[in-house]
């Protein structure tokens, strides 16, 4: 039983990181129907910014997190303005391929600047408490609490504020939204900033939990977050959160029950099965196509 609780804690930790990244995918998809494949690499750059803040500037945790979120949000907006905005009217696939190209660029640029994996210095003292055999570290609690707080904040923004209403309006009908006075370009940029900022936060938290970072760490984590977004129903914000936790649970459980080399195999096979029964994800709406 303690083993189960221990694993459940790990599930929540990994799942909340996946969910944070998946939110970036799903927000951009919801508003532009475009898969931002560079998002996993924004996450990686976030981890590297955290490294720079910690190792070179010697910042403590909270400023490092803020710096990373801000820098990645800025990077996200710059990428959107330079690479994606000229392609709004182009075929959808060109934008997706551009995103792949931007992702490759970020990976290789980071690789060229730092060819070796980096070790992040500990940003805070890690305390471990024992609750009846279950070891809970302060780091784990911090990661879980922070990501849950960010997710609730996002949910609040999207559902309760004018900005969120503008986002929903654009995702509902992009042609009509500007006629109702929604500044489309600005809202899209803000969406990118928020999504990328969440990615940067996820990068920092991930770097805290697994302190060795390398330029290709964003590839696998990014694809997995994308899968969680799709499992939850891409375009749906609550779906992305649920999807992240499901993927985390599947991964941790297979790693706990089977040899760890089977982890990817089982988790992807399960996702395929899930997609067969719910082809549009858990909270996604099947959009009927009209001829």
């Amino acid at each position, binding site marked *: 039983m303690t083993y189960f609780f221990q694993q459940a804690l790990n599930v929540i930790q990994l799942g909340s990181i996946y969910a944070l990244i998946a939110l970036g995918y799903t927000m951009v998809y919801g508003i532009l129907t475009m898969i931002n494949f560079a998002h996993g690499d924004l996450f990686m750059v976030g981890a590297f910014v955290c490294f720079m803040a910690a190792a070179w500037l010697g910042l403590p945790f909270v400023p490092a997190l803020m710096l990373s979120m801000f820098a990645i949000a800025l990077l996200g907006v710059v990428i959107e303005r330079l*690479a994606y905005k000229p392609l709004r009217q182009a075929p959808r696939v060109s934008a997706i391929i551009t995103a792949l190209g931007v*992702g*490759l660029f970020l990976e290789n640029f980071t690789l060229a600047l730092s060819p070796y994996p980096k070790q992040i210095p500990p940003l805070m003292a890690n305390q471990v408490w024992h609750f009846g055999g279950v070891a809970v570290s302060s780091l784990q609690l911090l990661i879980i609490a922070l990501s849950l707080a960010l997710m609730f904040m996002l949910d609040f923004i999207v559902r309760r504020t004018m900005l969120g209403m503008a986002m929903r309006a654009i995702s509902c009908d992009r042609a009509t939204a500007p006629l109702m006075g929604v500044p489309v370009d600005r809202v899209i940029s803000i969406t990118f900033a928020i999504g990328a900022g969440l990615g940067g936060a996820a990068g920092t938290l991930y770097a805290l939990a697994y302190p060795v970072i390398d330029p290709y760490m964003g590839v696998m984590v990014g694809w997995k977050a994308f*899968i969680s977004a799709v499992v939850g129903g891409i375009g749906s914000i609550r779906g992305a959160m649920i999807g992240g936790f499901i993927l985390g649970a599947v991964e941790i459980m297979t790693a706990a029950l089977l040899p760890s080399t089977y982890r*990817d195999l089982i988790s992807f096979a399960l996702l395929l099965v899930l997609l067969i029964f719910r082809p549009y994800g858990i909270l996604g709406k099947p959009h009927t196509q009209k001829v």
Partner: protein
Amino acid sequence: MRRETKVRQRVRIHKCMRFLRNRTIAAGIAERLLGPMRRLCKACGIFSRGGGANAGDRPSLWGWIFSCRWTAVVLLALGFAASFAIPRFNLVNPYYQLILMYVCINIILAISLNLVNGYMGEFSVGHAGFMAVGAYVSAILTVKVLPAGLGQVMFPLAVAAGGAVAALVGLVVAIPSFKTRGDYLAIVTLAFNMIVKSLFENIDAVGGPRGLLGISKLTTLPWVFVWTILSVWIIRNFVYSRFGRGVLSIREDEIASDMMSVNTRHVKMLAFVVSSFFAGVAGALYAHLMQFINPRMFDILKSTDILVMVYLGGIGSIAGSILGASIYTVLLEALRPLGIWRMVFMPLVLVLVMIFRPRGIMGFREFRLFMRREDYEDRPLPAPPIASQDGGEAPT
């Protein structure tokens, strides 16, 4: 409405003028660089939209030669002879021969992915998975099953077997594509790629994560040449057949083509099978060229490479795939002195191409080579395959 002030108006006019001037200068440079090539193309009637040799106004020798069907045969024979002669007499530096073989293998990969992504309009991101299947199956055959002495003789068989098994796997991947499209199908193919990779990592008989060693070098220039020509020829004929028309109609509108009684399931299955067959063939050739394979060679980054080639060259175009694969491979090799920075440079090129030519270099266009004007203008298009009344198989 806000009225523009005089100053703002003048600034705008000034900007407009500057833009036009820059544009003229750029056009002038482009004309200086590309002009001779364009004139040559026009003379040969390659991009012929009116004008050119085929219009009958100015018959030129080159135009006649390049529109003649027999030229293709002669060129193929010459190429085949060259592919034998080059390794035999060492006409070209071995390093260039190797690059030539990489180019050919990448052409097969790009062209087969273009069938699904370009012509059918799906978004498959797991092409390296099929490649892995072909590579492993053929390598197991030549290393473990077939007698060692017969390697060179049995090689085409092993390659074809690799392709066939990959095609079978492609059939399985085609089944989810009946229900889902777009991003969800992308997930399916992505998951397929990861599953294949981690499956091979978990089978100890083929070396697990360490990979399969001791493959003999059976891939030679003539074989690569033959398989490349074969794949171009088959996929070109497939696209222009009635099944190919069905594939195109699925891209344009799946429901409408279903209504027009195109058997979409049949067509999709066939497209996936053909595409994965050639991916498997390319994998087999690759394995016997590298003489060593491991699962990490066929991960998602390899799939991304193939995607880049296809979209760089242009979707829905065979000439585009050939161009894209050649440019990508050769440029990557040519930039080798830059070290790691070439990997930074290539994605930039891709992004720029996408911004200025969103459909890729040749998107939806072909060179009009080796066919006369009347061949492609007045010919009625073949009808797409039609499901018979009882809903059974399509008559071909």
